[in-house]
């Protein structure tokens, strides 16, 4: 599996860097776009000083961690979630099913993207900057914890992307659910505690996006999570990520098993 993954990554890297100017400008463009988005948010936060109980640099940490996790998840799942509805619409999903490999894994690997390097680098920069402002030590244990949270968050993002795309197998041509997930993702850029209790419940127990960045940042910055759980719940992020990945694989298998091709 790892050999296959590395081969796909190499192929993608070669195809993307075939036009180096385009590749580099793409990265710079995404830095500019996300950087300016955060700059406007920073202007507002600095003008008010507090968002709920969160200071501007703590919101930056939350935003940046989410960006890192999104980069990880989107690298392996965004292309798949976007191409699945098109494949169903064009009737070429059969190609996927007859491969001698788990069809979901193949779909994700064949749509792997290296373009999210810009999101990731910007996210890491934001996390490092916010740690420096907060005075968090760059100790081995803290760094390991951060890596664990990034990995867990990436798996949660990837699982949710795929889960939002799976209904398109039944509802041919429908891409709105994947767009809806993009909207859900917006919630994760801000402290969950500023939203209503039902939403806090929803994003903790039903669509567990809060485990991507909210709980981990609350824990690392020792901010009291102003809801019905404490920061300690962040330690469940890897468990939630594993569970969600298993659910995604199961839903995929059930949906593909019931799929009826319209081929000739």
């Amino acid at each position, binding site marked *: 599996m790892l050999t296959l993954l590395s081969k796909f990554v190499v192929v993608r890297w070669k195809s993307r860097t075939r036009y180096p100017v*385009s590749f580099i400008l793409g990265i710079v463009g995404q830095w500019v776009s996300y950087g300016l988005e955060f700059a406007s948010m920073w202007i507002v936060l600095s003008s008010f000083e507090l968002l709920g109980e969160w200071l501007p640099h703590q919101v930056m940490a939350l935003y940046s961690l989410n960006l890192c996790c999104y980069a990880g998840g989107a690298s392996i799942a965004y292309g798949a979630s976007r191409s699945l509805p098109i494949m169903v619409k064009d009737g070429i999903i059969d190609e996927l099913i007859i491969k001698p490999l788990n069809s979901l894994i193949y779909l994700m690997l064949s749509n792997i993207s290296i373009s999210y390097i810009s999101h990731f680098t910007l996210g890491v920069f934001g996390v490092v900057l916010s740690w420096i402002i907060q005075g968090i030590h760059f100790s081995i244990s803290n760094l390991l914890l951060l890596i664990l949270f990034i990995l867990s968050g990436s798996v949660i993002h990837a699982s949710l992307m795929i889960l939002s795309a799976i209904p398109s197998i039944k509802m041919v041509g429908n891409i709105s659910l994947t767009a*809806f997930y993009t909207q859900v993702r917006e919630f994760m850029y801000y402290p969950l505690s500023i939203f209503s209790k039902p939403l806090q419940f929803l994003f903790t127990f039903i669509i567990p996006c809060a485990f991507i960045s909210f709980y981990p940042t609350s824990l690392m910055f020792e901010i009291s999570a102003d809801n019905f759980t404490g920061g300690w719940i962040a330690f469940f992020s890897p468990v939630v990520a594993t569970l969600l990945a298993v659910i995604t694989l199961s839903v995929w298998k059930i949906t593909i098993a019931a799929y009826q091709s319209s081929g000739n």
Partner: protein
Amino acid sequence: MIRCLSIVKHAYRSNSAYRVNIVINIVSALSSLYIMIAIWNALYSKDISHTHPLEQTVTYTILQSAIFSAFHLYPGRRIAQSVYNGNIAIDLLRPVPLLGLHYAHELGNRLFRWVTLSIPTVIVASISYSILPPYSAACLLAFLVTSILGIALFSLFDCIVSYTAFWIVDNWYVNWFEGGIIAFFGGTTVPLWFYPKRLQGLLDALPFKYMSYSSIDIYLGNVDASGIFRVLYTQSFWILLFICIERIIWLQAKKKLVVNGG
């Protein structure tokens, strides 16, 4: 003109094929509004001493995200896409000017989005949150006129930026620059009144605040009569300048055109 209108109609109708999308899009738009308004509520709950009250900021957010985002036309992006996939060869053969063709397509798409998304969203949002009415009838009229000019300004800027596709073909990254710059300097995510004073001079000198921010500011009654005329003059100046630039680039672009595919 009649041909363009039939393209608008066709684009509008082709959008209505996926009805489930309409509901999901409305839910997405409302959730986006909810996020923004929750943020403003949280910010204002700690500090209510700002020059612009919460109601103005909430109204700004609703008008910006429900009305303007739905009506931003991207004819240039469509042309760039057409260059990339080679469809430009067919587009140029059609009995409608290239720009008119893509304007009409965009208008049809956006009209559909406006009817099925913006209007329901504004209705639901006005029930859920307190939207301020226009400051006066004159402000409403000025808001409508400057909004149309702002939308024209936005689409012309999109054309100028997207025509880079004629030289570099795969210009996908240009959209990132365009989106980021308009969002920051045009105040599409955060009202520009929150920006520091030292940035205001720069914001006034650039065209981006006249794409939608100024119109909403007029709606809210924050601009006096002379200010409204200043906005109208400035918008007209930028539109004329952008039309000239667009035409010059288009003349050069035609010479650079390479049709992909075969």
